[in-house]
């Protein structure tokens, strides 16, 4: 279980402090899927990075199964059970797809095992194993390989930062099926940053981040109508965040 308490991340801009994330609190149960959504520039990706340890929180706590991981480095958090798919994965000259997926699995993988993982993200696997993770791959291929690196291992919590970005419709459909499968299977918690309605519809709960703050937190049934224009999620937000205040002491 992940518990986030009053998480704040601030940056120093020309001598002035500015909060990118402010007092974010929520809980994610084992096997639960939380989709974080909201306007561009609202702080969603920063929240994901702070959870993974790519950025360090200025205040607040992150607890994974009761262990405070706030001061752990990114690799220590990975060992503690966090997986993270970057929104813009880096390219590696000389690194083959097979090698990267093997590193992600944390153990030597047979070609067949590697192919199985890659096929889950719609890559015709065997031809990719020897290819380099460099400029010869398209953005969509890079993105799917990035997701495969998280699928290569069982995590307590897998975080995907805009997994749909740059992916074609066919691959996106396959990807949503994979997320549904992961979710149905249970075990690992899933946190997805997304703007896609189809992904938001899969969520158990939805967190809306706007201007670095929690604008709403609630179940899919509570928030989805507002998000897809059938109501106002801000109405729900007041309700949900009021609940959050009780639980986590949010302002």
């Amino acid at each position: 279980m992940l518990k986030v308490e009053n998480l704040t991340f601030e940056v120093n801009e020309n001598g002035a402090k500015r909060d990118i994330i402010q007092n974010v609190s929520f809980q994610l149960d084992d096997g639960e899927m939380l989709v974080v959504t909201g306007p561009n520039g609202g702080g969603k990706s920063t929240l994901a990075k702070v959870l993974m340890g790519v950025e360090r929180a200025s205040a607040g706590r992150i607890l994974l199964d009761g262990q405070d991981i706030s001061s752990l480095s990114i690799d220590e958090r990975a060992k503690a059970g966090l997986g993270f798919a970057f929104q813009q994965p880096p390219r590696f000259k000389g690194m083959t797809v097979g090698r990267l997926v093997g590193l992600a699995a944390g153990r030597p993988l047979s070609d067949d095992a590697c192919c199985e993982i890659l096929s889950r993200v719609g890559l015709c696997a065997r031809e990719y194993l020897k290819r380099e993770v460099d400029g010869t791959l398209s953005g969509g291929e890079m993105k799917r390989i990035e997701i495969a690196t998280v699928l290569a291992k069982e995590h307590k919590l897998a975080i995907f930062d805009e997994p749909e970005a740059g992916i074609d419709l066919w691959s996106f459909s396959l990807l949503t099926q994979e997320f549904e499968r992961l979710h149905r299977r249970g075990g690992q918690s899933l946190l997805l940053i997304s703007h896609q309605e189809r992904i938001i519809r899969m969520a158990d709960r939805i967190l809306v981040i706007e201007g670095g703050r929690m604008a709403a937190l609630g179940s899919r049934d509570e928030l989805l109508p507002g998000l897809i224009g059938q109501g106002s999620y801000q109405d729900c937000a007041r309700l949900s965040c009021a609940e959050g205040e009780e639980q986590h002491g949010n302002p």
Partner: protein
Amino acid sequence: MAILDTITKGILQQIDPKGFLQQGAFNLRYNGSSLCHGDSEHVKIVRKKDKPGIDVYIDAGAQGEQVHIPVVLSASGMVDIVYNDFYVADGAEVTIVSGCGIHNSGCDEARHDGIHAFHIGKNCIVRYEEKHYGEGEGTGKRILNPVTQAEVGEGSVLYLDTAQIKGVDSTVRKTEIDLGPDAKLNLTERLMTHDNQIAQTGMEVRLNGENSSAQLVSRSVAQGRSRQIFHPRAVGKNKCKAHIQCDSILMDGAEVASIPEIDAKHLDAAIIHEAAIGRINDEQLLKLRSLGLSEQEAENVIIEAFLQ
């Protein structure tokens, strides 16, 4: 079969990963002279009479054959200069595994200069693999100065794969290639320097024949206070295509200078160069660390892959 000592065996494992088995066509040069040698049906190795070195004659019957000609230097203070010529008949397909390893346990410098000249006929496929490696607890320098010259005949392809693994204090590499009509060159250079090592590479590819093409890729890692200088040059004298790509990772207090040069002497010569020098990318480190690797492990993986 010659019996090899432990040092020689260890060096051969580094410079001849395909395996030096003393079978088929082979020649092991050890401290300035040939320790063992063998011919095959289609590859004959003949010792030069006028200067140190060998002539390797590869006939058209060689199809997918390997020739192993490593050099091991383990005598401190030795300067070994060798001239090897390769004559490849029309239509032959061959892999030549060369390379030199120096074990210097003394205080005098040990140096090997290998001058290799390739005379490649028409429609051949030649793969040349050369690894350089240095080791030894002595204070004497380990120096390697290779020269590679090749005339590549019509329709032939030359794959030139050179690597300096580690432990070489100083190297000056010179490569000159002439390409005939429809000839192709695929050159890959990988270089690792550390401590106070110095490496200089000069390569010139002359695209003389119509529709000739060349791909030159150089990848290097400079650590410690080492210094590397690259000067690749492609000269297009006919309708041709060439692409030069130099990438270097800079670490610690090392220095890298990359000076690519392209020279088009024909209207239909299309030549491109790219050069990049930089430290290890932070995003690559973060990605690997997000997989559970420590910073040092991530760095090692990035370097290993880069030089693969």
